[in-house]
């Protein structure tokens, strides 16, 4: 039985993969319950940032182009979605559509320019564009972005489509999907379905000739050019696709909480998605999702711990030991969560540049080697 299951896993036809993935995502409220991560807010974050990271992985994982400006698309997606809520309707479908389209357009523009260069220059070009958008959002574009306050829904927004069909209800309306509210678990399941779709697309890309081409660009771009294939259209396409994924994730952020702020576009936010992708494993299918899960989960835990919790935790120690441990650990929790993040990031890059997925495969290899050695030594004995 176990062997059959393992074989099934190994074969990994598209259908089994996506079915298992779907089952895994949709049952998250069940299997995340024991570790205390089963509440809608956190689950929504898992899946939304999952989409972001899966999209980022299409660019960075497949082509090796390190973009430092992907948060722009997240921000643009959020703004587009909120504007759709304000002007058209509270239904989430048009919002997601607009967000994806607009961030795709902006990604096309940025990608067209940035993809002329590679390596570190590409990183700096994307960083420069990201900073431009971020600064503009706080200055000239304030009519669109509402500056530091952030873009919010208001009572007297036009909402043309909604108001055409029904009279406006009193109070702020909330986002919905044909009557299904986007709060709590229903919001999570909606985002989860979107993630499954996004994952399916990403998987198809990974296993398509297009994906192979991107991988070939990563391994040796010069050789690709010498064999007469123009790499630029492929790179730009990959950039646009990953930008659209980010825009979609931004839209979902607005769907679950209709508010958009420019701080989502800061370049440290781009750093965060890089971090998630790398922590899990760059260029692997599941790695980025694993990274998202770990980082968002740890963030959730670490940022809520304060000194009294620590004191309780270390209360089994003698008094001096307790004080000592609290003094050592407290800089890393609560406000200092970013410190933990930075340290974690450095450790991963230094010791495990392939991320956790590489770590797993290393362990697996060692395990297998040990097994082979065992059987060999057994046979020599006989």
């Amino acid at each position, binding site marked *: 039985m176990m062997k059959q299951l393992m074989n099934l896993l190994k074969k990994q036809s598209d259908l089994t993969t996506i079915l298992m993935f779907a089952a895994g995502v949709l049952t998250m409220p069940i299997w995340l319950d024991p570790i205390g991560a089963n509440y809608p807010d956190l689950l929504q974050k898992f899946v939304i940032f999952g989409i972001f990271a899966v999209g980022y992985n299409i660019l960075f994982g497949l082509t090796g182009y390190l973009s430092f400006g992907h948060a722009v698309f997240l921000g643009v997606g959020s703004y587009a979605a909120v504007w759709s809520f304000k002007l058209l309707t509270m239904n989430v479908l048009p919002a997601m559509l607009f967000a994806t389209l607009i961030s795709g357009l902006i990604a096309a523009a940025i990608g067209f320019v940035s993809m002329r*260069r*590679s*390596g*570190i220059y590409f990183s700096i070009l994307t*960083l420069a564009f990201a900073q431009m958008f971020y600064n503009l959002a706080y200055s*000239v574009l304030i009519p669109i972005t509402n500056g530091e306050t952030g873009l919010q829904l208001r009572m007297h927004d036009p909402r043309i489509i909604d108001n055409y069909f029904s009279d406006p209800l009193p109070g702020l309306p909330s986002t919905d999907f044909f009557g299904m509210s986007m709060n709590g678990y229903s919001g999570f399941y909606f985002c989860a379905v979107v993630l499954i779709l996004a994952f399916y697309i990403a998987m198809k890309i990974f296993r398509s000739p297009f994906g192979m081409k991107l991988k070939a660009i990563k391994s040796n771009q010069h050789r690709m050019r010498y064999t007469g294939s123009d790499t630029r259209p492929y790179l730009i396409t990959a950039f646009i696709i990953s930008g659209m994924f980010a825009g979609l994730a931004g839209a979902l952020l607005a769907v679950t909480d209709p508010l958009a702020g420019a701080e989502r576009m800061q370049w440290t936010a781009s750093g965060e998605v890089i971090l998630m992708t790398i922590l899990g494993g760059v260029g692997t299918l599941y790695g980025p999702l694993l990274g998202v899960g770990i980082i968002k989960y740890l963030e959730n835990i670490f940022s809520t711990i304060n000194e009294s919790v620590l004191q309780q935790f270390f209360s089994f120690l003698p008094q001096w030991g307790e004080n000592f441990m609290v003094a050592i650990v407290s*800089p890393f929790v609560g*406000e200092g969560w970013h410190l933990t993040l*930075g340290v974690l990031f450095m450790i991963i890059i230094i010791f495990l*540049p392939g991320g956790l997925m590489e770590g797993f495969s290393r362990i697996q290899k060692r395990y297998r080697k040990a097994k082979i050695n065992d059987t060999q030594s057994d046979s020599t004995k006989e």
Partner: protein
Amino acid sequence: MDAILMQLLNGLDKGGAYALIALGLTLVFGTLGVVNFAHGALFLLGAFCAVTFQKILTISKKILDPSITYFDAYIEQPYLEIWFGETGLAIIDYAVPLSIIVTIPTMLLIGLAMERGLIRHFYKRTHAEQILVTFGLAIVLQEIIRHFFGANPIPTPAPDIVSGSAAVGTWIGLGENFVYPWWRLIYLAVSTAIISSVFAFLHLTTFGMVVRAGMYDRQMVAFLGINVQRKFTIIFGLAAVVAGVAGAMYAPILPPDYHMGMDFLVISFVIVVVGGMGSLRGAVAAGFLLGVLQSLASMTAVSSLLPGIDQIIIYLVAVVILLTRPRGLMGRKGVMED
């Protein structure tokens, strides 16, 4: 006219800081071939060396306020004042310039430790990994600073005697209304002096000659039996010192807070690329150029014509330069053109 001149001075000032950071970045990249995203954090550490030095000098003792007799009121009196009287107060007043004495050895040590402890292991890795690990280091350093000093900017005043403004207008015959803060003038002078001394060091000493040769062809220099690696490590320390002094002296102009390193880093990177990866002169020239451009763009006349231009001019210039002249303003042909 006055406004343009004023912005020119402002720009040169800001450009001085940019140029100093970019100079260090370029030195590190040219010698070690490492893209160091933690260089902005070194600038930050320098600024906080000045802050710490000032805090140490002003450690105070609570004493009874003699002027209030109705109840016990306490005032804080710095130990330095108690011990040395007027001289002590003068030392406290000059905390920022004096902090350089501490900043230089501290930053040298930090730089050497960073190179030996971390950067050394990343020579053979890809640029992307170098960027990422130093980015992580920058986050760590920044968060450590926040843990100890809090998130608010810490005002670090310049000495009293130079806290006013210099009558620049009367010197050059533009009327008395044209004044400029003394400390900013001093900063400009200091940054120019540091830049010239770095260039003098590289061009007039044997050590500098070896380093330049190593930047040009590292393998050949190593064949000649010179320990290039050790020299490059010292260069990393030097770059850290330059960034640190730039930060310490900048503290009175911009009260340091924990994310100032990141703010300056992004711009400095853009400057290095505009000047040309690996070109020291390019880095300095581009630093001053972009500083001045940024200041000129923030004039009301310009920003009413092109709203928002002051926010993006640096990045706009960078994009244009990168697309039209891949190796930057003064980059050597063939170095990192890809």
